């Protein structure tokens, strides 16, 4: 007998993208459970052509479709006509105020929220990365929402090969790190202003690495460059652009602290990566961030740059606090293990009446 199919759809996929990584992990988990599973997309980034199928190739008869949603797109009508049981997987949408008014991203942000309200009729059951995202769905009238951050594989992160960052030197500097594309909602300009104070407060040199993709013509990137120049921090702040996974994990392993001052994160996968690679976290209280960090880090409620820098300097010399945070990280990561995610996915599918040929042990026992 042919096993049931649970496929996935997102309008675009790209190497290194958090939603794409989550879809690849989900496909792996579904196949391990004996289900047939493929990923379908409209725009397929370089390197994924053989792995992800064009959406026109979807033959959904008798299948279930996990519809990932992180922004608006032009395929709503097609999606509405797909003859399959559809389930929403919500990653949140970066609000339009963080984009250039009138730009494509701006329009797709607004459209994404409009579509979210309409999706409720077609997809009554949903998965959400965080309780923050789930509460947004419930407010829109979604009745059946399960929190399940199917975004990362902790074992794979810990095992991944890593390369030391290039040309960093060994001057005993204090290394602060943030990972994420250069974007207004991620507020890298706030991190640069913290670095201004940190340089004056630390007894050793200070480096701030901003690891993430940027485009030279992007207005926020140009603005960030201006801020770095204005604060005379070009020697201390490094914008790496897009890096390989090996380099990325090298940056985490070199970091003394991971600082996140984002004003919007749908989940914040780099926070989990930092925890998995044992980097202390200081983060600003916004969107899903406090929930993602849990007991694994310190949360600041105000963007007082001088005070945040002073807290980083205190943390750097406070072994007892770093040890307490390490224990907190371990506790948080236990709840995000691959087995727990797999069990959560199997339980969700069974609740929706989809037979899972090889459910994980935790679900079989329940």
């Amino acid at each position, binding site marked *: 007998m042919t096993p049931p199919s649970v496929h996935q759809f997102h309008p675009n996929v790209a190497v290194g993208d958090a939603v794409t990584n989550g879809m690849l992990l989900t496909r792996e988990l579904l196949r391990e459970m004996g289900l047939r599973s493929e990923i379908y997309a409209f725009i397929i980034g370089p390197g994924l052509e053989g792995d992800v199928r064009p959406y026109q190739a979807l033959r959904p008869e008798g299948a279930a479709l996990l519809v990932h949603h992180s922004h608006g797109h032009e395929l709503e009508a097609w999606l509405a006509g797909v003859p399959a049981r559809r389930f929403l997987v919500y990653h949140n949408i970066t609000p339009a*105020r*963080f*984009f*250039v*008014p*009138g*730009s494509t991203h701006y329009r797709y942000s607004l459209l994404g929220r409009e579509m979210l309200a309409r999706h409720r009729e077609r997809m009554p059951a949903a998965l959400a990365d965080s309780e923050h995202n789930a509460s947004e769905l419930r407010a829109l009238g979604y009745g059946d929402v399960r929190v399940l951050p199917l975004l990362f594989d902790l074992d794979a992160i810990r095992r991944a090969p890593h390369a030391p960052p290039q040309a960093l030197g060994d001057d005993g500097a204090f290394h602060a790190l943030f990972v994420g594309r250069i974007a*207004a909602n991620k*507020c890298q*300009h706030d991190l640069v*202003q913290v670095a*201004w*104070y940190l340089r*004056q*407060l630390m007894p050793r040199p200070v480096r701030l690495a901003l690891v993430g993709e940027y485009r030279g013509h992007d*207005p*926020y990137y*140009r*603005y960030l460059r*201006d*801020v770095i120049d*204005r*604060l005379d921090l070009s020697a201390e702040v490094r914008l790496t652009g897009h890096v390989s996974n090996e380099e990325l994990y090298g940056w985490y392993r070199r970091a003394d602290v991971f600082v996140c001052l984002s004003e919007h994160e749908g989940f914040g996968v780099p926070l989990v990566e930092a925890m998995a690679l044992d980097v202390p976290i200081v983060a600003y*209280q916004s969107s899903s961030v406090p929930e993602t*960090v*849990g*007991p*694994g*880090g*310190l*949360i*600041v*409620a*105000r*963007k*007082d*740059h*001088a*005070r945040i*820098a*002073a*807290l980083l*300097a*205190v*943390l750097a010399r*406070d072994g*007892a*606090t770093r*040890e*307490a*945070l390490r*224990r*907190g990280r371990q506790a948080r990561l236990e709840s995000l293990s691959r087995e727990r995610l797999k069990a959560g996915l199997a339980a969700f599918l069974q609740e929706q009446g989809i037979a899972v040929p090889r459910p994980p042990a935790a679900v079989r026992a329940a």
Partner: protein
Amino acid sequence: MLTTAAPGVDVERMLAEADALLRGAAPRPAPPVLPPESALMAAGVRELRELLAEARDWSTGRPPEKALVGRPRLSRALLRVLFWPMRVLAWPQRKFNRAALDALETMLEMFPAAAYSKGNGAPR
């Protein structure tokens, strides 16, 4: 200002130490930085201006120079001749378009001041 769900972290002590460090080191305040919204708004206004300039090219009623560049002399002459009846027929609409463009440009002139006054040069 500071919270954590990690057991065993003395948040009050950390804050007291941080404040003592700030008092002792008395760091120079950072130079004022405009908020990023001003940069995004300025980019949006710039894009609109470019669109308006393009629209104005067409609203003059002449074939845009871009359409003529690089074409053989005969094709250019033919294009100009073909364009004449269109000019005559489209005259009322052009009149309206140009008035609308003038109004839009006047409105747009007011944007940079509005965008930058929000930040007022002060850090957030």
